[in-house]
């Protein structure tokens, strides 16, 4: 196991397309790092550069103390799990797992031992004689996992390994992959576009957009302390609610105002705006931080558009002009569509964003 360091890495396709821009990253030993972003954000390209499957345009990549920027994939001692599994269809499961070991001329009995160990870790020890075409998607994924474990790599790379599985299997494989990671203690870079996958597995999340890193942080960080509007919107289901508000300083304190909303800021929140000299901002608040209150305390009142029961809670959707605001409320009492709801915000959890730079003001 080793660390991974990427310094000022850039990837350019053709003359114009910048897939990855000035990418800097350090992954610690045994860390489970997730590259998260919408499709086309360069996360897979970044990982493929670590694997050596894409050439680096500029910048350097280090695995441990070795510089691997110019090395071919086979000399990097990384292993990779592909989105479409990429198990070789003409080899049995055993041969798939033993492939790398055979190339290294490992003694036969040792190969046998390693293959059986890594197969049992991925729970496919009874499938060793099968051909991949005789396996289900989930089993093929397990073959890919044990093939990756068998080589004892410095870095594990996983390129959306769960996206081809059905929803239920995906969630259970998530747990298993994480367990295997903990058992093997491997430094892992995991690429996904599924934020809930990222939240549930990652030690740290790197959020990317248009080839750039937007935020690096723990799942808690990116969720509660989103650095930009993009992050706040991308992370969480339902996503953060946004209000375009103007700042009005009145005698009793600072108010955030728009046609539907008049929110008097608590002093500790108001002080974040001291250094801010624009009269507009974007207010972001998570659905679970919007509270249903009595009419008297309400910062916002509107009629409920629809309520989605989720068992443990309900998601209340409210239409304000063109925007739909979602709030998470307790399951009971059930809120009927069309009824009036009165809302207040947990002010400590609010995020203020600069409408021009989209960056958060209150950090």
């Amino acid at each position: 196991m080793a660390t991974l360091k990427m310094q000022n890495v850039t990837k350019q396709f053709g003359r114009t397309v910048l897939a990855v821009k000035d990418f800097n990253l350090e992954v610690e030993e045994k860390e489970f790092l997730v590259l998260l972003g919408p499709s086309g954000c360069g996360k897979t390209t970044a990982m493929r550069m670590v694997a050596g499957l894409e050439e680096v345009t500029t910048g350097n990549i280090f695995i441990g103390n070795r510089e691997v920027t110019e090395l071919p994939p086979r000399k990097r001692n990384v292993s990779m799990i592909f989105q479409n599994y990429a198990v070789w269809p003409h080899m049995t499961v055993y041969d798939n797992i033993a492939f790398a070991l055979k190339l290294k001329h490992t003694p036969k009995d040792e190969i046998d031992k390693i293959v059986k160990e890594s197969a049992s870790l991925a729970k496919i020890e009874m499938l060793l004689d099968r051909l991949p075409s005789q396996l289900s998607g989930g089993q093929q994924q397990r073959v890919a996992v044990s093939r990756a474990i068998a080589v004892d790599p410095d870095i594990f790379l996983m390129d959306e390994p769960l996206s081809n599985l059905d929803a239920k299997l995906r969630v259970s494989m998530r747990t298993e992959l994480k367990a295997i990671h903990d058992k093997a203690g491997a430094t892992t870079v995991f690429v996904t576009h599924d934020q809930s996958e990222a939240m549930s597995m990652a030690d740290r999340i790197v959020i990317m957009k248009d080839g750039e890193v937007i935020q690096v942080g723990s799942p808690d960080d990116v969720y509660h302390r989103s650095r930009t509007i993009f992050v706040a919107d991308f992370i969480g289901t339902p996503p953060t609610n946004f209000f375009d508000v103007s700042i009005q300083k009145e005698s009793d304190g600072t108010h955030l105002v728009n046609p539907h909303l008049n929110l008097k800021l608590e002093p500790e929140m108001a002080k974040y705006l001291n250094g801010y000299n624009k009269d507009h901002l974007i207010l972001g608040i998570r659905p679970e931080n919007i509270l249903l209150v009595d009419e008297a305390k309400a910062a916002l009142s509107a009629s409920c558009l629809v309520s989605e029961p989720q068992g443990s809670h309900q998601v209340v959707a409210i239409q304000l002009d063109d925007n739909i605001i979602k709030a998470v409320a307790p399951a009971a009492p059930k809120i009927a569509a069309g009824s009036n709801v009165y809302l207040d915000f947990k002010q400590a959890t609010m995020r203020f964003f600069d409408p021009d730079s989209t960056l958060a003001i209150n950090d």
Partner: protein
Amino acid sequence: MTTKPAKIKKPIKLSRLISKTIFYMFIVTLSVAIILPAFFLVSLSFLSTREAYNYPLPLLPTLKTEYSMTFGDRGYLISVYDNFEEEYQTVLDTSETEKITVYMRNQLGTPYTIPEIEEQIAKLESGAEDPVYFSARKNIFLNYISFFQISRDAVPALLRSFQIAGLTILVSLTIGGMAGYAFARYIFPGRDALKFSVLFVRMFPGVAIALPMVIILANMGFYDKPIGLVLVYSVGSIALTIWITASIFMGIPESLEEAAQVFGATKFQTFLRVTFPLALPGLAAAAMYAFLGAWNETVSAIILTQFNPTFPVVVYQALLGAVGNVNLAAAGGLVMAIPSLIFTFIIRRYIQQMWGGVTI
């Protein structure tokens, strides 16, 4: 007490009966159309010359011939039993024993030695029997032996054909396979136009471009040499190979190759252990087309060779009547067909060997 219900025979619907009948008629017609010529060729190649030029033509070759011998005007009168007319027909009246044996061998496919015929003559002379009846066993492969004896070029031509077909496979698979891989894996300007244009070479009939080819090959010093024909055949089969292999390489996910590289394989090992086995069915199919194309090609070979013909040219010459008879030509034709058949049956195993997830 229960009684067994009487079995009711289902009436067959008339429309179904008709459609089935038409279906089987179609199938039978089709098989007859395919099998009959092949059967005819095989049967003809085993007929003796006399049988082959007889009317009506026998369906199957005889295995032995009945002879009768009596005294004739000029010596001994030899008659042959005709299976169709069911009577002996006089074929020869001579006193020379050698002439008799040559006739028996060449016309009826029954090798008979001079002492053997003299023995029969002795029987006749002694007056014990008149006429003398005897039968001679037919050498069923005599046509094949004769074909190679009469067409002096046949054996070298056969070897030459093997050489040409083998080299054509090698050249077209090497160049066409690599080009097919490039077409499948890389995007470059003009790719589709180029891929289509390789098919242009197949649009020209061999005869139409024969003269320029003769001139070009003569200038290269390859006229009447196997290598010249290899070049000509390869041009056509490279085009086909490119199309076959490109489509099969396209069916192999790139991630399979990338996985091999990540897990420690060099580019060459990746090709050898992953790409090649997965592409084998396509390569086998391409090899088969290249072989059949080169092996069976006659027109260009007639034009582009003079003293070093290929085997189809030799068969063609046998058919022309310059050397022999139809039954000899049939024997030659069958000799030519056998390697194609064997090669196709061997290669068929690989073409069928489709791995899961990879389709052409």
